């Protein structure tokens, strides 16, 4: 599954961070971090709570301004680009988003067209088509007229994913898109993300808690601890007993999945 063939011989960089330093108030979360996100790939950010995964993701998406360092979108400093132009290139779905509960799914997803809207903000033919496509991809077409307060957790998450999809951006950043979902809905969402990558060539960066899902759906895993990159590479190279001990403070056995041979980690004891 993760042996995703990249057709481009030269890996182009979609997003790059150069010596990023990010903090909240007194606290420095990311001391100095550099990374490059390959275009057309699925990259997973993993790490323990407080390791700075979400902060990295938000900084890459210009939701947080770094204290030092630069984020490059397609080679240009993201802070120098108009925010609406960035919004046509890159969509981010933050963790636990909230909207007025009386909003319908359709009204929510429609907002995804904001960065593409003309001067009168009227929805044109192509906007309607993009909204319909986003709803269809997220399997939300039938729930279009439903209010958010009438949705289940899984439906709600898919509605927000549809919003990000309606933005029609080549780059998609998702912060723990599977939280609050049962295992069936988790796989459904991740499979959808994989399809978006394979069929439309979208560049995807995910923050994931579940290491086995990261190994299954991402072709590259970046492990963070205390705001620093500890490991970066293919799932098989990153998911090792040593790394799990170092990053998550757990003893774990790594086995191969009996069905498809992907690496699976089975933690069994805390080192903390």
């Amino acid at each position, binding site marked *: 599954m993760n042996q995703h063939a990249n057709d481009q011989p030269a890996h182009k960089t979609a997003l790059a961070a150069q010596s990023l330093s990010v903090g909240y108030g007194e606290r420095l979360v990311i001391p100095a971090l550099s990374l490059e996100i390959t275009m057309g790939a699925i990259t997973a950010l993993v790490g323990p709570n407080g390791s700075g995964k979400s902060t990295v993701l*938000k900084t890459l*998406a*210009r*939701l947080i301004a770094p204290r030092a360092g630069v984020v490059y979108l397609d080679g240009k400093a993201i802070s120098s680009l*108009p*925010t*609406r*132009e*960035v*919004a*046509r290139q*890159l*969509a*981010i*779905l*933050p963790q636990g*988003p*909230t*909207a*007025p*509960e*009386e*909003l*319908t799914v*359709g*009204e*929510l997803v429609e*907002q*995804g067209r*904001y*960065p593409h*809207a003309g001067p009168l*903000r009227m929805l044109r033919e192509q906007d309607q088509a993009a909204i319909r496509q986003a709803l269809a991809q997220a399997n939300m077409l039938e729930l*279009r*007229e439903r*209010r958010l307060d009438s949705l289940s957790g899984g439906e709600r998450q898919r509605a927000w994913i549809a*919003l*990000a999809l309606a*933005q029609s951006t080549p780059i998609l950043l998702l912060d723990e898109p599977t939280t609050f979902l049962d295992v069936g809905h988790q796989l459904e969402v991740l499979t959808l993300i994989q399809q978006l990558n394979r069929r439309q060539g979208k560049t995807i960066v995910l923050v994931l808690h579940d290491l086995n899902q990261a190994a299954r759906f991402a072709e590259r895993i970046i492990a963070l601890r205390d705001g620093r990159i500890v490991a970066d590479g293919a799932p098989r190279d990153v998911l090792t007993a040593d790394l799990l001990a170092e990053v998550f403070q757990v003893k774990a056995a790594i086995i191969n999945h009996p069905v498809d041979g992907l690496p699976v980690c089975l933690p069994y004891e805390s080192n903390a």
Partner: protein
Amino acid sequence: MIQRLTARYYSLLILLSLLVLFVLFVLHVAVGSVAISPATVIAALFNQPVEPFQHIIIWDLRLPRALIALLVGAMFGLAGAILQVIMRNPLAEPEMTGATSGAVLFAVLWLALAPAQTAQPGPVLPFVALIGGLVGGALVYLLSWQGQHDPVLLVLTGVLISAVLRSAISIILLLRQEVIGTVLLWLIGSLNGLVWTQLDVLWPWALIALSLGLTCASLANVLQLGEENATSLGLNVPLTRLGLFFVAALLTASAVAIVGGITFLGLLAPHLARRAVGADARRLFPFSMLVGAGILLAADTLTQAISQPVSIPVGAALALLGVPFFLYLVWRRKP
């Protein structure tokens, strides 16, 4: 199919509300110390011949008051709807901009410090109050600024500043008790004695602020998804928030400048509107205006009908009726 039905539902609702509003408007003009039949009111409004004294009562006394109620109700309704979007809080109300207490404070100061004005509020007072309202709004906005704006901080600052300004008003009134008589009705919020002079001051501001607010509806829609989502969608969040806050403060300040501090209307109208048309600001904003105008017209008609010859200010009646009604709405929501 479903989509077309909802669009039709909405158009129907708007049409129905306009009809109800027209009926309320006619009733408002008809009710007073001298009762006039609704048929006569409609005839007079369309310039058909009616008894001369009825024509005078309708055109010189009651029509401006009804028009002011219409505009002011719409303004409080829209201001409340806008604030609920900015603060992401369904309990936000226009008073939290600081514009209400700012306007009242400036007006009281003006009446207390300019003795020549005390006999008659005059046409200058609304402008003084308007400036006061905008100053109050600016104060709240600047004091809640901490490098960026946190909606919760904005709510807290609004409540605190309003409380401080209100206590300043009380102190001034205690020191200059002769002013109380002039501003009492206005402190409570009242439509009593309003004529074309006040309407002439109000309508240009109403027109500007209402249209500004309605144009911002699609920006408000993006903003109400939260700061991070709105930024992700390419919205300039600080600028949009400032713009909407300014519009809400302008609506509140110019409405308060004419009728005084009417409470609960800005909380109640958007609340009811949201139940009917949902949270999409392109529907919520105009509908909050309609509901606000309807409530104020109905409340003023009612208070005039039951409180002859002593007329209770509509602000007092609204607060009296609004609180239990709002509590009922809150209780009904619970499972």
